[in-house]
């Protein structure tokens, strides 16, 4: 469904992605792990057309992602994104945040969009916060609104860019639980994360990225439990035993 073919990306003289290829099939959950600066988030942003790339191609169901082309707005309605810092619209309530895309991009009738948005917020456990502004919500609640906003577009896939990295530790669980439920319903997901527990439990496949290349990939039980590559081993060791 999503095909990333030999992507190269540089910021000036700094090469951040040096030939990355992978595919995500329909209904699959792919977790991308790796040290900071490895290019994980950049790949996700390229898939959503928020960044340009210099070489290679990204295809969504065969259609090329080209940030400079008009087709990008249409592709974005098919692939939603959840950001590290939530990025809700602060001047709109939780309900309005979720309704925004359906009403103004997909031209859904407002009453229908309202019902759908309310149902989605209920699903992420925020049925009592419909008229609350983001400023009055905790980080975990804001991120759940952001997930509802992504779901409201009825996308074919959702990209998660370190969705729990900006959260206080006690709020991480509520967001991961919602993500696990979304995965269980068959949503295609690409998740950049440092939550190894989540990757182990939910991912169909894990990619370990370092220095702009995929070092190792496979099912979580292989990559996370018995990594073959020394760099993967080293990274996982440092994540699991940070004080050593």
């Amino acid at each position, binding site marked *: 469904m999503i095909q990333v073919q030999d992507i190269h990306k540089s910021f000036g003289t700094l090469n951040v992605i040096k030939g990355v290829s992978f595919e995500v099939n329909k209904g699959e959950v792919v977790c991308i792990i790796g040290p900071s600066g490895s290019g994980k988030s950049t790949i996700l942003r390229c898939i959503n057309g928020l960044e340009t790339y210099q070489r290679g191609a990204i295809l969504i169901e065969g259609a090329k992602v080209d940030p400079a082309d008009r087709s990008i*707005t249409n592709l*974005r*309605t098919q692939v*939603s994104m959840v950001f590290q810092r939530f990025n809700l*619209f602060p001047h709109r309530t939780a309900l309005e945040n979720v309704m*925004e895309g359906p009403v103004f991009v997909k031209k859904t009738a407002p009453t229908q969009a309202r019902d759908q948005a309310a149902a989605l917020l209920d699903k992420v456990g925020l049925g009592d916060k419909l008229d609350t502004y983001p400023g009055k919500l905790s980080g975990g609640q804001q991120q759940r609104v952001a997930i509802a906003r992504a779901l409201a*577009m009825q996308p074919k896939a959702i990209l998660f860019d370190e969705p729990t990295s900006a959260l206080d530790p006690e709020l991480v669980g509520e967001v991961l639980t919602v993500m696990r439920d979304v995965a269980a319903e068959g949503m295609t997901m690409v998740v950049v994360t440092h939550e190894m527990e989540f990757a182990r439990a939910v991912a169909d496949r894990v990619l370990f990225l370092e220095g702009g290349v995929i070092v190792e990939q496979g099912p979580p039980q292989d990559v996370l439990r018995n990594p073959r590559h020394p760099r993967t081993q080293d990274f996982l060791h440092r994540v699991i035993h940070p004080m050593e």
Partner: protein
Amino acid sequence: MGFWERAADYVPLLLQGVWLTLIVTFLSVALSTLLGFLWAVMAWTRHPVLVAISRGFVTIIRGIPIIVQLFYIYFVMPEIGINLTAMQAGIIGLGIAYSAYQAENFRAGIEAIDKGQIEAAHSIGMTDQLVMRRVILPQAIRIVLPPFGNTIIMILKDSSLVSTITVAELTRQGQLIAASTFDNMTVFTLVALIYLALSLPLTFLTRHLEKRYSQA
């Protein structure tokens, strides 16, 4: 005759000037807002040509005294076949001059909006136009409104500059009365009081807006 008797003689004449002052102010505010918004949006597009035009225009306008711009429009334009009445020249001159300041204000308001929100809006398929209308403008207005109030006050006061190109607004009327009566004290006290009466409500409104939006 005391101050009040003489004042009563001058006020009707001065009020004729007030009427023109208000028209010049109102239309200059409208024109400068429109143009200023245009420059700000052009700068926001990141389109190299549009950005260059916008930046070049703002830089040039800000570097030339408003009074010289007015002279240019009123005295020089006719030489290339563009004849404007003093009133038209005054409004266009002030409007263009202040559009440069308005543009800076609008640009600051637009850029104050968190980039993450704009990306989020793009990620749900919004076009730039929709991002501007639904995400940036509703929030930028709150940021832009207090300085916009200050700009209106400055345009109101600087509308006195069009007296130099013969528009018979408040300041010009005052000069004419003073020249024939030599009663400078009464005339210019009245002129000053009238400007103050026009600007004070705006000042209070601006302060109110500043207070309200700094709390939000």
